[in-house]
């Protein structure tokens, strides 16, 4: 038992060695995101009398280490080393840097020093100092008095090796082009992420699937019973003809394609095409239907919505855009009817069957929300009420009272739909 335990602990020791040996070569204490500039200008700043790296050699080390860095230049920060405020800070930095330190603990506090660091533009400042057998280094970049990265490497007198190790530690990865004076001026005046401008135009295209029915939820059944119970006798007779739901089954899956956009994240418009299929509600007791194979109507609706929306940036990858819409549509009911095989001649009732108007005009309104993931991929949920009916823009004729009611003059249904969308923005 004892020997087994010993074996186990030896194994552990061995593992520890394997893990720890490479880590001691170069040790990064912290590394916050920073930009590596192409054609970088690096200022080597040290409080030591003999710098551990030479400027010209370091520029070559940078080139060797990162082929994308262009033509870097490096120089010793002589003016920094002579400046008394910078010297005090460098002495302090040398005293305070160790493995456990965080970036905020190494922040420069003296106002003159803060100014010096923040006004260095895109020049990268590399502070190096020797403490015993370790070479400590701190990197400053950008408009911050807080260092971006710090680390240590074992010190050797070989300045080229030191330069290579530093270049590998801090200057690997993608190098960005340096901005011109004009570009930098523009970048400075750009609002930050918390004050981001809303896109001038935000567009989407989508396909949706849903369901439609005549009964609006939370309304009494008595409003619909008459229509929904109604059956068509001998191809045309119903109790009432005002709503198409007297003739057709109202419940149907609903499919749609649509494209739209909003301006300034607030007002917008959307074009849509919707399709659903409705069977005729036959009175099965009527023997005249023996000849009939199928009788359905395909409903196509095309229309335009006005959108009012607002945008919430919830997390980095999800924007929620609730909206309300109001629009008009044209409805077309296209008949699909067929007799059974072997029926030579259709009945008289068949030939004089009900005919709907060639098109209906209607309006729709509702609410919904886009859920946009990673700026482009959207899921959309919407619900609303749509109507279609008689054209009201005709002049009433003198004998209007005697005119027959328009069939389907008031056909109302509600719908719910889930869509998949692609979004894009123009700034």
């Amino acid at each position, binding site marked *: 038992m004892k020997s087994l335990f010993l074996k186990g602990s030896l194994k552990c020791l061995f593992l520890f060695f394997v893990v720890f040996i490479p880590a001691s070569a170069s040790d990064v204490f912290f590394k916050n995101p920073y930009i590596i500039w192409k054609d970088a200008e690096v200022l080597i700043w040290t409080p030591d009398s003999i710098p551990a790296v030479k400027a010209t050699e370091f520029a070559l080390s940078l080139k060797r280490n990162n082929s994308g860095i262009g033509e870097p230049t490096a120089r010793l920060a002589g003016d920094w080393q002579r400046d008394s405020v910078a010297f*005090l800070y460098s002495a302090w930095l040398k005293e305070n840097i160790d493995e456990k330190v965080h970036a905020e603990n190494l922040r420069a*506090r*003296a106002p003159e020093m803060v100014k010096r660091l923040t006004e260095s533009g895109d020049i990268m400042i590399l502070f190096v100092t020797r403490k015993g057998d370790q070479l400590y280094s701190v990197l400053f970049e950008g408009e911050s008095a807080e260092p971006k990265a710090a680390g240590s490497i074992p010190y050797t007198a070989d300045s080229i090796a030191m330069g290579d190790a530093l270049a590998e530690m801090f200057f690997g990865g993608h190098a960005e082009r340096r901005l011109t004076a004009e570009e930098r001026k523009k970048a400075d005046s750009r609002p930050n992420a918390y004050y981001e401008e809303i896109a001038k135009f935000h567009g989407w295209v989508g396909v949706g699937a849903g369901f439609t029915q005549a009964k609006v939820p939370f309304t009494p059944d008595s409003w619909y019973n008459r229509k929904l119970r109604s059956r068509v006798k001998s191809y045309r007779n119903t109790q009432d003809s005002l709503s198409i739901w007297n003739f057709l089954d109202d419940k149907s899956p609903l499919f749609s394609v649509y494209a739209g956009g909003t301006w300034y994240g607030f007002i917008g418009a959307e074009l849509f095409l919707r399709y659903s299929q409705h069977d005729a509600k036959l009175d099965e007791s009527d023997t005249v239907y023996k000849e009939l194979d199928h009788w359905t109507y395909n409903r196509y609706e095309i229309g335009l919505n006005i959108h009012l929306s607002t945008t919430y940036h919830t997390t980095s990858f999800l924007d929620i855009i609730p909206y309300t819409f109001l629009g008009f549509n044209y409805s077309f009911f296209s008949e699909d009817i067929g007799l059974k095989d072997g029926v030579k001649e259709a009945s008289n009732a068949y030939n004089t069957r009900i005919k709907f108007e060639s098109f209906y005009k209607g309006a729709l309104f509702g609410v919904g929300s886009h859920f946009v993931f990673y700026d482009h991929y959207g899921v959309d949920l919407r619900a609303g009420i749509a109507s279609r009916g008689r054209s009201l823009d005709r002049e009433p004729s003198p004998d209007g009272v005697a005119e027959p009611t328009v069939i389907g003059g008031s056909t109302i249904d509600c719908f719910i739909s889930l869509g998949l969308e692609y979004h894009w923005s123009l700034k």
Partner: protein
Amino acid sequence: MESSVTKSLQVFYKNLSLFPDSLYLTFPEETQKLDERVFLRGRFPNQGIPVKKADGTTPTYLLLFHEFTVGLDLHRESFFDYALINQEVSDKKTSENLTIIVSYTLWDNIKQRPLFSSIIEQNQPIKGEITLDNLVNISQATAQALLVDIQRGVGK
């Protein structure tokens, strides 16, 4: 009051020496964040310059008092918590407590960096009139609370 605080502290810290306020006022003023909402404003020694005593020796630690507020029924949140400092207090005719609020920093004078900052609040119920003894008592109690608080901070 000042002497009673220092006397209480001297019992615990044998070689405590005092620096004058004029030295403190030469330091640059800065803000320190203690919490998401709690900030204290004070003066901290310059980076790179250790504070030296008159005899030329450098003390290891400095205890920096930023504010020492004496009042009636005060709450430290009303002074230092940024979410609560704008609250209005209703007029009061009677007070229940004598309060001292101290904000301080324990400073590493060798490395010139803050070790620990804190704000403490000490209350003493008022019985009748406030006398000089009351003030001395609450000062001593504050010093004791300070000692406890520093020990807790060092333990962190």
